[in-house]
């Protein structure tokens, strides 16, 4: 009952959408409900969901990261060119990719916070520079796919798992990454980030290192893009168009998940659910055989409708009466019952 109410509440809109889409997919293609198929679906969503997790941290701080897609492309090509067919290079190259991601995140974050350039512009510049730079370096084409051991991360998994049939590494990584993400949102870093998105000046006056906090969000975003790139190298292979448009997909997923552009509000699990809903939508369009030319249009309508639903439902609920107000505070109140003001004790009148 409570779950149902959450579903129709604005915060749950994305889960409702996801359920509807999955049901539609299953109806059109019953084999989707088989564990193996479903795991494949999760494996496919993992890269975009991970990117959405990274984007979530940037967005709740009131910023944008448009460089994620380019960073994925860059990392994919770095992996392709540097690992080559040599298994032994897997670990060093992974480390190098992490270092590179941290560097990109730091540059994004520091330009945004110290130079006060809007992150939309910083990361737009980064998007151009990264893609251009890596294409310039490689002459446009990667040498080829890296060693299979490297690709195993995104392509393989544990087979013959009871009940699940096949458990892709990607799904495990997604679970770990999401758990890490949830943990961070509960940590001072996550709480401060969301406060930065709400009121940056208050954070300054509180003595927090706002620049460093925000910068770390960009680093998380860059690391997420890198993890996603590692999965995509395995899933799709090395190609200059891997990762293209991921930044917009990620932002769409995050917004679909009820996170407010501009910061200060949103739930990380919602963002991940947004990614799942988007990917389920793409799959539904494939399976339903919607003409490929029309898919974009259908996708556009559904995105607008879903976001509009939450926006309008949220406003409507603010006006409504007591019974609906429960959903606002349906998290258990951990503190002692509401404290009272002076006047409630001595009522003089």
């Amino acid at each position: 009952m409570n779950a149902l109410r959450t579903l129709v509440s604005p915060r749950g809109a994305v889960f409702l959408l996801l359920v509807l889409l999955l049901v539609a997919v299953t109806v059109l293609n019953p084999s989707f409900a088989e564990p193996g198929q479903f795991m494949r679906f999760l494996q496919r969503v993992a890269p975009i969901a991970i990117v959405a997790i990274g984007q979530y941290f940037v967005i709740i701080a009131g910023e944008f990261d448009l460089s994620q897609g380019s960073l994925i492309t860059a990392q994919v090509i770095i992996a392709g060119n540097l690992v080559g067919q040599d298994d032994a290079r897997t670990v060093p190259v992974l480390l190098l990719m992490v270092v590179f991601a941290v560097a990109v995140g730091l540059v994004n974050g520091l330009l945004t916070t110290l130079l006060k350039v809007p992150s939309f512009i910083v990361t737009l510049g980064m998007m151009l520079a990264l893609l251009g730079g890596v294409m310039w370096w490689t002459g446009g084409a990667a040498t080829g796919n890296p060693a299979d051991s490297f690709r195993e991360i995104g392509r393989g998994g544990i087979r013959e798992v009871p009940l699940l049939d096949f458990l892709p590494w990607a799904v495990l990584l997604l679970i770990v990454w999401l758990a890490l993400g949830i943990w961070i949102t509960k940590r001072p870093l996550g709480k401060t980030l969301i406060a930065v998105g709400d009121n940056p000046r208050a954070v300054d006056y509180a003595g927090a290192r706002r620049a460093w906090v925000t910068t770390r969000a960009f680093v998380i975003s860059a690391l997420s893009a890198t993890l996603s790139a590692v999965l995509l190298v395995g899933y799709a292979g090395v190609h200059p168009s891997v990762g293209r448009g991921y930044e917009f997909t990620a932002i769409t997923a995050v917004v679909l998940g009820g996170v407010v552009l501009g910061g200060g509000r949103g739930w990380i699990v919602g963002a991940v659910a947004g990614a799942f809903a988007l990917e389920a939508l793409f799959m539904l369009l494939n399976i339903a055989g919607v003409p490929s030319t029309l898919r974009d249009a259908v996708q556009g309508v559904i995105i607008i409708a879903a976001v509009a639903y939450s926006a309008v439902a949220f406003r409507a609920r603010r006006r409504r009466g007591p019974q609906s107000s429960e959903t606002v505070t349906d998290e258990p109140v951990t503190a002692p019952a509401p404290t009272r003001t002076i006047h409630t004790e001595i009522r003089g009148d």
Partner: protein
Amino acid sequence: MKRLRIDSTLIVLAILLLVIVVGAILVGTVGRNFLSAGNIRDILTGMSVLGLVAIGQTLVVLGASLDLSVTYVISLSSLLAATIMNGNAGNIPLAVVVTLLVCAGIGLLNGLIVTVLKVNGFIATLGVGLILQGILNTNFEGAAGSVPWAFQLIGATGVGPIPVSTLIMIVLAVVVWLLLNRTRTGAHLYAVGGDPEIARLSGVRIRMPLIWAHVLCSVFAGLAGLLLASRLGVGSPTVGQQGGYALLSIAAVVLGGTLLLGGRGSIWGTIGGVAILAVVDNVMSVMQINPFLKDVVRGVVIVAAVAVYSRRSIVRRRPRFGPGGTRTGGDDAAKAAEPEMAAAAAELADATPDTTPAAEGGRA
């Protein structure tokens, strides 16, 4: 007592000047003349289409929204115009009117989704862009239509080195400048972009200015599409994406000193931003820079140029002490005005002698 405020538009123009000087020198090193007619025409042509889009984008950004659908509006506009004209000069007026009306309709849709359905501009226009792309792909399989010679002239002729398209863009920029600075809609757009709640409390109907901004933005994208149709001679379903106009126009707008959060900015800054991008592109083309490297330079230039003024434009208090500090701040003015104020208060108080304060109500 007026404080000299370095306007961000001025900074943009200064950066533009710098870019031109450096560019001219660089172009000189490869034995070319930056100021030759052909080169100027190349730069100005490069400015016209993006300029039109960016003018419209400025309006939307001032209203604290975004328009990512312009690319598709441009493509649709070029196709509509070319197919309606169909090579016949007599159809030009009809084609222009229908095209712009359709674009206005798309803008209206954007505006309504943003204001009534309260969908963030980023997502709303991304979604509408996808819808338009679907429509384009379904209905057009490639270049279509034909633009009569009379209409092609707009894109192909010029006054001396100045293309007609640039003149049109400048004239429209003046019109938009008037709109922003001399009409209520303009003033209200600034207000809504600055703070919609304050605008509402001040009695502004906050939906209309933003709807207008979206309509005009789409119309300007439509004009850009018309101009492209006239230059291409046909309509093309991909011509908008080819130019990457959505992100570039936003970059140009911000480069021009307009606040991405809305409420502050100017049309001339935007034109300056567009010019910076066009000059940088031109110089790199003349120097035959590797096309991939061009993107790197472009990215760096955009960030660097915005960085030049973004720190300054953060509102600062007047320093009272130290270098550049004036102790003749507001207090002194206020102090100087004090006798006056006191006199005014006394006078006002005298005017209504019957209102004696309820002294007995004072502190017990």
